[in-house]
């Protein structure tokens, strides 16, 4: 058993060495393995029986038929090899999901030649079998896989296989792409008393003011280097050189803060923050996220939500 495991590890190490990880893989002869399938071996047996017919009944044409069958297996190697050869798999994107849901990995299959490659089978225990039919130069595949915990879920090394067009030989490659899906924590409603202070009482109507470019705010003295288009010409007429100053406004926001849950363990805090995000979304309130290593200023909208959730997913993993 130990010996076998050692052997297995050796093989894995060899494969890993031979096929390093990157976000795009082009299959070439150093990556494609090809062997006659069991079906092909049986055809070889049939060819052998036909040759026996030829020998035993002195049937010349059966020699031809027998060797034809053998040569067919041989020729099928090229047909099947062509299916994988020159194929490029690119990591496209992977989804951000709640822990426990299925994450999706999107791959792009790319080829420099416009060739029908038959059904390509992407095989892994986690998703069983996904078939991609490649007719032309590009196609998309998505693989889905259950996430069991918060954090990073790299796309596992899977087997890409083709038996097309005759099933006599099987060509395969082990593909590992640098592509990870992320799972943010499953939201859990933590009791209010876990919170160190209530945000609700602190909410103010104050406006955050940044100097910016959205709204006119006031006039100020000209300084060398101010842009010409900002000069306030009416005051110029009064022989004053004034410049328009602008500001951006922002509403008062809620901060979802890691520090608000001192009594909880790490993962639970994240789950609580995840729940808080959901609450804010439900009320359509803007929110910011504060984690020990990261701070996301308050905001709204799907991109912001995703950024926050992603921060929760990535916490401690990067």
């Amino acid at each position, binding site marked *: 058993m130990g010996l076998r495991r050692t052997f297995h590890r050796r093989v894995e190490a060899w494969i890993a060495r031979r096929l390093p990880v990157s976000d795009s893989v082009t299959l070439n002869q150093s990556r494609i393995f090809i062997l006659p399938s069991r079906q092909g071996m049986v055809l070889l047996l049939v060819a052998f029986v036909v040759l026996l017919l030829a020998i035993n009944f002195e049937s010349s044409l059966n020699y031809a038929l027998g060797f034809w069958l053998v040569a067919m297996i041989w020729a099928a190697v090229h047909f099947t090899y062509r299916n994988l050869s020159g194929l490029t798999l690119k990591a496209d994107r992977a989804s951000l999901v709640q822990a426990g849901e299925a994450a999706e990995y999107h791959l792009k299959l790319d080829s420099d030649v416009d060739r029908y490659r038959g059904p390509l089978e992407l095989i892994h225990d986690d998703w069983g079998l996904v078939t991609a039919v490649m007719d032309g130069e590009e196609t998309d595949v998505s693989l889905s896989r259950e996430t069991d915990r918060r954090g990073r879920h790299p796309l596992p090394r899977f087997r890409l296989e083709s038996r097309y067009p005759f099933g006599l030989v099987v060509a395969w490659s082990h593909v590992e792409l640098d592509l990870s899906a992320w799972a943010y924590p499953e939201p859990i409603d933590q009791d209010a008393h876990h919170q160190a202070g209530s945000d609700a009482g602190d909410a103010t109507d104050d406006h955050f003011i940044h100097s910016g470019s959205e709204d006119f705010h006031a006039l100020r003295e000209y300084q*060398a*280097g101010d842009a*010409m288009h900002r000069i306030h010409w009416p005051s110029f007429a009064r022989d004053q050189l004034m410049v328009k100053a602008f500001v951006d406004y922002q509403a008062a926001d809620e901060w979802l803060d890691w520090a608000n849950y001192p009594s909880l363990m790490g993962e639970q805090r994240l789950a609580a923050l995840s729940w808080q995000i959901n609450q804010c979304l439900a009320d359509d309130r803007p929110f910011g996220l504060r984690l020990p290593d990261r701070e996301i200023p308050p905001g709204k909208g799907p991109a912001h939500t995703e950024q926050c959730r992603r921060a929760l997913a990535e916490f401690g993993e990067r």
Partner: protein
Amino acid sequence: MHDLATVTHHLQKRVRQVISGKDEAVRLAWIALLCDGHLLLEDLPGVGKTSLAQTLGRLLSMEYQRIQFTSDLLPADILGAQIYSRDKGRFDFHPGPIFTQLLLADELNRATPKAQSALLEAMEERQVTIDGEARTLPAPFYVIATQNPQSQSGTYPLPESQLDRFFLRISLGYPDVNSEKSLLKGELGRTHLLDLKPMLSAEQLAFYKQQIADVKASEAVLDYVMRLVHKTRDPQVCRLGLSPRGALALMTASRAMALTEGRNYVMPDDVQAVFPAVAGHRIQGQRSLDSEVLVRQVLDDVDVIAA
């Protein structure tokens, strides 16, 4: 006219009157100028960065300006601005120090990103836009920027995309014992700068520049360069690999290197000589490796000759 190898030799000799013991750095700086590229000098204060820039400017008879970057530097301080002239009652354009042939941007990383990017954009486009009006910079236009090591406090590190615009990055390092001794004796230094006579005219420089394109690069060398470039793109080695622009710079610099060695064909030795300067600031290791170590590792791992 002398060939480039001789010229290089003379140039090094002359520079030695001001800064000694830095022949290789001088050669690389010279190569950057030959290739129309900007130079980034990364080193501690006081090792002769400014002297080097000034010397080069003088030897090549180029107009020279210097900007000391500070955290309160505004873009207008670099580019210039329309300034209201009260006597004339109109706006006049006051060109900034950038309107020169050789610009020394001292301690570039002390300035805010806004000021940095004003310079970097000018470097790339060789023109500046002020209040909607495009103004062309003089030709040739070179920037020699100096940068303090990233670890020093009060610095804004240059973004990766900006770093790519510098053709070469070199560091001078402390002078060796003899050079420093001569410096202390007063045999060296900026005082001698005024004694230097211009060596090359703009036309002569242009003549040498155009030779670079004719330097041959055999398949074997191109393959080697490609192997190097690919190695830097290997995610297990580098987080950020050499961009195509970087690869092109590597090849151009190698060509120039070959010329300064008096050859009209490139050898892997040339590539190796310029690689640290070309790649050092463009690639980043997967672990926080010192870029010099990373570059050395890449050079050691990639076989010079195809297996």
